[in-house]
């Protein structure tokens, strides 16, 4: 198997949940390339935050974008070159805060890209503030007395927005993570995997998740209503059970296929003259 690692020194904290995501994506991409996916067709896009360093650690084409701006950039390159396999890594602050509108629109368009959300429910790189998925009362550096707002459920939002593959995993369940990433990448349409990722430094939820997660069984991911019920079971705030696995899948037309394919620009002079003739 080809090596997808780089020589870049890894600067994640020891025990960071990002390592599991990195290992899972490298394994999945390695397997897919062995099965025939040309490695040069792969592009990893990232936002800004701890998660985003992943593009420096994987030896594929990459696009280290701006905070919140993973999905418009990923959409642009996918529409430009539909043969590319575009995987967007984003943090929860990135995708659900700064760039929420873009995430909703990427789902709405059903553009064939994959969103992997490193959802540690805290801002790591800016040293510990609350995010859109932090529970109410979260005490961070910007909310020393606890947040006064509830988190939102990003997967319920994605279901409402038109995403056609919705899943959740955790950073300490790497086998499931590999399975979810693989299915998400192979899914034709907008796929999102929300990864409950442990931030050992600012919000260590390892034991909390260990006690509560369970893998979805006997769930029909093609049933929209069932998916909605399962997605709403845990609201990112209560202390109930947390389902992981694939909540929803659907076949639907993808955005990038709706454009004319790129043609030659050589004959444009004549076409321009013809257009101008109409305005004499």
């Amino acid at each position, binding site marked *: 198997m080809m090596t997808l690692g780089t020589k870049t020194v890894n600067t994640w904290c020891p025990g960071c949940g990002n390592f599991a995501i990195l290992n899972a994506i490298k394994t999945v991409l390695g397997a897919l390339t062995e099965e025939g996916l040309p490695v040069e067709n792969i592009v990893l896009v990232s936002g800004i935050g701890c998660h985003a360093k992943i593009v420096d650690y994987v030896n594929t084409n990459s696009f280290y974008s701006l905070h919140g701006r993973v999905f418009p950039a990923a959409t642009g390159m996918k529409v*430009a070159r539909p043969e590319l396999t575009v995987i967007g890594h984003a943090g929860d602050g990135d995708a659900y805060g700064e760039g929420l509108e873009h995430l909703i629109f990427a789902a709405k368009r059903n553009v064939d890209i994959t969103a992997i959300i490193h959802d540690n429910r805290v801002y790591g790189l800016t040293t510990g503030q609350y995010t859109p998925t932090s529970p109410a009362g979260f005490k961070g550096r910007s909310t020393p007395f606890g947040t006064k707002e509830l988190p939102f459920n990003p997967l319920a939002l994605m279901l409402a927005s038109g995403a056609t593959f919705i899943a959740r995993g955790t950073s300490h369940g790497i086998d499931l993570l590999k399975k979810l990433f693989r299915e998400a990448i192979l899914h034709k349409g907008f796929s999102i995997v929300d990864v409950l990722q442990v931030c050992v430094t600012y919000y260590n939820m390892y034991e909390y998740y260990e006690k509560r997660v369970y893998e979805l069984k006997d769930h029909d991911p093609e049933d929209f209503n069932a998916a909605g019920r399962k997605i709403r079971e845990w609201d990112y705030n209560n202390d109930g059970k947390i389902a992981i696995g694939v909540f929803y899948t659907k076949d639907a037309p993808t955005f990038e296929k709706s454009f004319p394919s790129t043609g030659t620009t050589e004959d444009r002079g004549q076409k321009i003259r013809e257009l101008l003739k109409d305005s004499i």
Partner: protein
Amino acid sequence: MDNLSMLIGGKAGFGIDKAGQIIAAIFNRRGYRIYVYRDYPSIIRGGHTFSLIRASATRRDAHEGHVDYLLALDQETFDLHKGRLKSEAVVIYDNDAVKVSELPDGIRTIGSPLAKVVKEEAAPDISRNTCIIAILCKTIGIDWGLAEEALRRYISKDIEANIKAGSRAYRESPSLTEFGAIDQRPHPLVSGNEAISLGLLKGGLKAYLAYPMTPSSPILHYLAHVAEEFSLKVIHPENEIAVMLMALGFSFAGERVAVGTSGGGFCLMTEGLSFSGMAELPIVVILGQRPGPSTGLPTYSCQTELNFALSAGQGEFTRFVVAPGDPEEAYYWSSEALNIAWKYQIPSIILSDKDLAEATYSFDEAALATAQERPPFLWDRSQAYKRYADTETGISPLAFPSEKDAIIKINSYEHDESGITTENGAITKKMEDKRLRKERLLREDLTSLQTVRVHGDKDAKTALLCWGSAKGVCVEAAQELGLKVVQVVVFAPFPFEEVAQALAGAKKVIAVEYNATAQCARLVRARGIAIHEEVLKYDGRPFSSDELTKKIEGLL
């Protein structure tokens, strides 16, 4: 008579804009050169709107403040514009809607019961615009056939009823003069926005992205309309931030892309602009200026974004900024903006404004030969690929996914030659030097292009310094007064030498700009060149030729 100015006005929703286009088309077919200024409020129904149509034997890219014909579909048009009537002007009006007050001797009036005519001919109310065009044509001796042909080209809805009402208005009105045809080939009529669109297409545009915003939306509409024909991908994303980032995704994938907006949208694009500077992703931005600050006057014009275009985005990076002054320049520089963006892997900004963007001009087709698509520097596979390879010119050869054997790493952080993030001081300096070094070759390339243009009497001791859409009116005022015009076309990199050379010999330099702080004059002064007077207008309306001529005359 080789110069005729007409004003048609009414409420938004009366079809004033279309009527202006039809009148322009009729005169165009008769060999006249056309300029149409459109004045409309940011309202869909109601509110005063008017078009000033100028037909001349020779090209004149400005409107006259005074008119030969006033076509009034409502009282407000007459009341607001009667002061514009020339001494032998003609007022054509709907006497069901307009009461014409006492006018000086020499001015003739033709009132016609247009509301009654359209009602009796079972035509829609809006066809009063057709009727008033018909009366104008009859008055100046233009065949009904020619008028009907133009009406049919521009009107699709209820056209037969329009023609019926129009032909009756034509029959029932008097013929006053004979306004002959001119024996020269008609030119296509285009707006600045159309010229920009066509220039981009010629420059190899593969994708256009925009969020609607006056005055640049017509580019989005035009390109969306021709997208299939040109295999063009046109997208209207959720906001201007997405527009810019999506465009950078196209750029990364190797497709020539442009985005269009106005000041407010450009504010949202600036983080992406800076990203383009850092990550060396080619992008073309059309920045159509309209008066601010903030929402300002959405449908009016200004030249207030020069400083903004020159300095937008955090950090220091090479950029190209050009401000075309007419549709031929807009066509050429739009294609060139793409070539420059791709050769240097930098952002190119085309500064337009509402007047250039939406005015109608006679387009000289000779300009078509000026534009061509040129390829960027591509990776030749002779060495291992590094996206940000440090070279003598600062330009790193391009490769696009899915090129084999090339790992293409784009990065908004400071990065090494491979595109891997760095915080190392020496590499930071080296990479910043590399990016800024690109300006040297760009400056060299630009020396052979018309970055500064001189018009009028080149030996005159007084020069008007202008840029952008002020060019047309300055050229006419200079012609009238025997002056020189120095037009700055490229603003970044700023052509100091060329401006100094163009202004050499002028004892008096008068800056003419549509802003309150003389932004172009400041740049020129920074070079130590004296600007003696400033003629600034910032009420959203362009100078008419007579108004500017009078103002300049007062300064001589």
